[in-house]
């Protein structure tokens, strides 16, 4: 079997001493975490290793000895070899390196049941020395050739492996198989943080080398933020409790307000962001990597949202943009109403050369015209207040760009309410007509819809039933083009408005769900999100063990976005294209941007 030793790059030039690490059971590999230097007292080393094991939860042990002889340290080798008797191990590794040479040499001392140490050497020179016997030479050569290159040194960069997270992330509870070798290596290094606290400048009894042995690194900003986050979290949770108390006041629970608050996207966005802030304001640190990423993504998304909103506010409130907007809004509404007027006049005449039923045409046309007239008067009534409304509404942008966009979407919905009303009238009329037509068509053919069996059955009708049914059928059939045309026109208008609102909703959704922190992490610190590893052969001289360099293979950006997307409240579009076209044809009302959390109203 091949023995794999994961060796940190920072220990390549460490002074001679003992190797501390972990054996990975079942895979015949060992992870070296640190090197404890000579001089040391073996009792203290044992105590230290046990202490670290208790603190970190990793099965640490002394793996073997490491020797990098410098001048004046000749007796080191024999001393280190004798250490194997003090630390009782199943296998004892003796790794040696000469300054100036690239390869390491490794000897593995195996302790079988009898307690006798059998030695298997890996050096080619030793094999040549023992090649003196005749009959045994070939056998020994084969045996040693078999055992010759059976150690792989995998060099890894300790800091990067410690900070990195392998994807797909396995949750701790649902584990059917033991984690794979690489996952165990990553977990071991990540959990051994207490081992990396001793550095070169500490005055303890033991000196060790690991990635932080040059001195502990930390960022002042991060430490300051950590200190400041606790009171901030407390303040935030207090504010949120006040807000939820206001929201749960009884007066808001009356039916119309409740219904309205589920329809207005601003209220939905508000409740969504409140949920986020509740998650952020919890003072406990995140337990797992997924929770940490979620919290970080939420925080960055809120900050970016607010920053963009403030920028928008700055643009709105300088140079009197609000007054400009207000002054264009009422003429725009007027213009839309005039266009609708002209459209209806056109429909009441002979639209596109089609001949409409005069009476129905006039009725429908006049009804809609009166509706528009009402609406325009309403707009004119509101016009002095529009600037005030816009001014205060623009203030909501300080909560975030998503709020401004949802407010815009709501305002568009309110200003085009008449188009929505027309669409509903037209659709209902058309729907009724279509159902009536289909039922009377069945009567025409002598069939009936059986509600119990949910199928079409034959039925014998009386003569007067047939007579009246046929009459009604003819009336409805000849009135169909008129109704259908009105329905078509208003559905198209409604679809235009729905499209515009949809674009706004999509952008709000994008701001809510896009994992900015994760993408930023992927770009700047790509080793933190790892999809796997990649190996590079470092030195393959014959006779020296194989050295590989293990580098982290970062996750693809698309996978990052998919994994760390924050779930939002909308699921769109609800129907597939075919179902939508079918609904349009039959005359059912369509709500393509239905929110996920609303129950069927």
């Amino acid at each position, binding site marked *: *079997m*091949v023995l*794999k030793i994961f060796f940190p790059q920072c220990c390549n030039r460490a002074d001679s001493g003992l190797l501390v690490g972990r054996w990975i059971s079942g895979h*015949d590999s060992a992870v070296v975490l640190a090197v404890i230097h000579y001089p040391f007292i073996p009792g203290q080393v044992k105590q230290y290793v046990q202490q670290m094991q208790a603190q970190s939860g990793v099965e640490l042990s002394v793996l073997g000895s490491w020797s990098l002889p410098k001048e004046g340290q000749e007796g080191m080798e024999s001393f280190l070899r004798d250490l194997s008797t003090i630390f009782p191990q199943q296998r004892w590794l003796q790794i040696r390196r000469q300054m100036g040479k690239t390869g390491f040499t490794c000897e593995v001392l195996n302790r079988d049941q009898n307690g006798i140490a059998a030695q298997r050497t890996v050096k080619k020179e030793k094999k040549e020395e023992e090649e003196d016997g005749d009959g045994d030479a070939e056998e020994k050569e084969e045996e040693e*050739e078999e055992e*010759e*290159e059976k150690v*792989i040194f*995998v060099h890894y960069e300790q800091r990067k492996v410690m900070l990195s997270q392998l994807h797909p992330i396995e949750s701790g509870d649902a584990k*059917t*198989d033991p984690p*794979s*070798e*690489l996952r165990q290596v990553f977990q071991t290094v990540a959990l051994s943080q207490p081992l990396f606290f001793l550095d070169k400048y500490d005055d303890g009894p033991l000196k060790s080398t690991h990635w932080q042995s040059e001195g502990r690194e930390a960022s002042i900003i991060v430490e300051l933020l950590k200190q400041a986050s606790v009171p901030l979290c407390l303040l935030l949770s207090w504010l949120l409790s006040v807000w939820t108390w206001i929201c749960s006041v009884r007066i808001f629970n009356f039916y119309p307000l409740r219904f309205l608050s589920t329809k207005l996207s601003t209220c939905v966005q508000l409740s969504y962001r409140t949920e986020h802030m509740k998650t952020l304001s919890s003072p406990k640190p995140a337990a797992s990597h997924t929770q940490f990423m979620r919290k970080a993504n939420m925080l960055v998304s809120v900050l970016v949202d607010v920053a963009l909103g403030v920028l928008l506010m700055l643009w709105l409130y300088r140079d009197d943009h609000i007054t400009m907007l207000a002054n264009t809004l009422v003429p725009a509404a007027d213009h839309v109403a005039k266009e609708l007027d002209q459209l209806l006049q056109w429909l009441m005449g002979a639209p596109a050369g089609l001949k409409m039923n005069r009476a129905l045409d006039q009725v429908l046309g006049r009804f809609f015209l009166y509706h528009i007239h009402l609406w325009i008067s309403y707009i004119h009534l509101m016009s002095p207040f529009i600037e005030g409304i816009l001014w205060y509404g623009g203030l909501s942008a300080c909560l975030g760009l998503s709020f401004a966009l949802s407010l815009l979407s709501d305002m568009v919905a309110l200003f085009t309410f008449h188009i929505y009303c027309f669409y509903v009238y037209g659709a209902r009329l058309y729907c009724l007509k279509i159902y009536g037509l289909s039922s009377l068509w069945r009567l025409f053919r002598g069939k009936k819809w059986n509600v119990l069996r949910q199928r079409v059955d034959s039925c014998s009708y009386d003569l007067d039933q047939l007579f009246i049914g046929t009459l009604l059928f003819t009336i409805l059939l000849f009135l169909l083009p008129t109704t259908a045309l009105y329905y078509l026109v208003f559905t198209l208008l409604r679809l235009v408005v729905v499209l515009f609102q949809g674009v706004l909703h999509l952008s709000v959704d994008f701001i809510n769900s896009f994992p900015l922190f994760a993408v930023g992490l992927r770009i700047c610190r790509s080793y933190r999100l790892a999809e*796997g*590893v*990649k*190996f590079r*052969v470092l030195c*393959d001289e*014959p006779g020296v063990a*194989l050295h*590989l360099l293990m580098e982290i*293979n970062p996750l693809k950006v698309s996978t990052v976005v998919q994994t760390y997307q924050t779930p939002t409240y909308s699921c769109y579009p609800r129907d597939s294209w075919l179902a939508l076209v079918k609904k349009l044809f039959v005359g059912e009302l369509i709500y393509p941007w239905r929110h996920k959390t609303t129950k069927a109203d």
Partner: protein
Amino acid sequence: MMEDETFTDISGKTISLDCQSHSSFCREFTVSSPKVSIGKVMVYTCSVWLLAYAAFFITQNTAVLSSAILITLVGMMFHIHFVKVDHESLLVIGSLGIQVSSSYASGREITTFIEMSKIKDIVINEAIYMHQIIYYLCVLLKDPSEPNAVSSVVPLFQVSQRLWVEEEVEVCRLRPGVIPSVLNFPAHLGRVRARKTTTKQP
């Protein structure tokens, strides 16, 4: 051990195979595609620019010329960065796993490492492609929930070629159980099942 014989792929382009043995349990196989030929590049750019000049002659609009230059540049960059594969390599490390990497003409490398515990087997699979049967090497991955089922098939050397067909060899049928020499893995890496590998002269 370096071998460099002439092979061609299913579309007739020459490719070369390079085997390097780092140690007794670590080998690297590299399949290199031919480089971008300068003749083809010149033909494409000249044709695009002639068309652009013709359009300019008709419309007298300089935007046509600048857009043609832009299109040529962007197209070439896209081609060497995303489409043109320089070489693909397979690094087999005993008891660690298999690493598959493809490197493009612009230097970009895509690497995947498959751990030993996930590999079920390496087989030569056959597929029907238009009018011929092609054989390709692929890795069968284990399903984590069911140890006996195969979760996915990963074809190796996918982008450059599916298979190399040896030229100038007479009809040669491999007897069942015979392992081709390039796939001489040690026993603990898994058996290679060679199914119906008849190599014919095109």
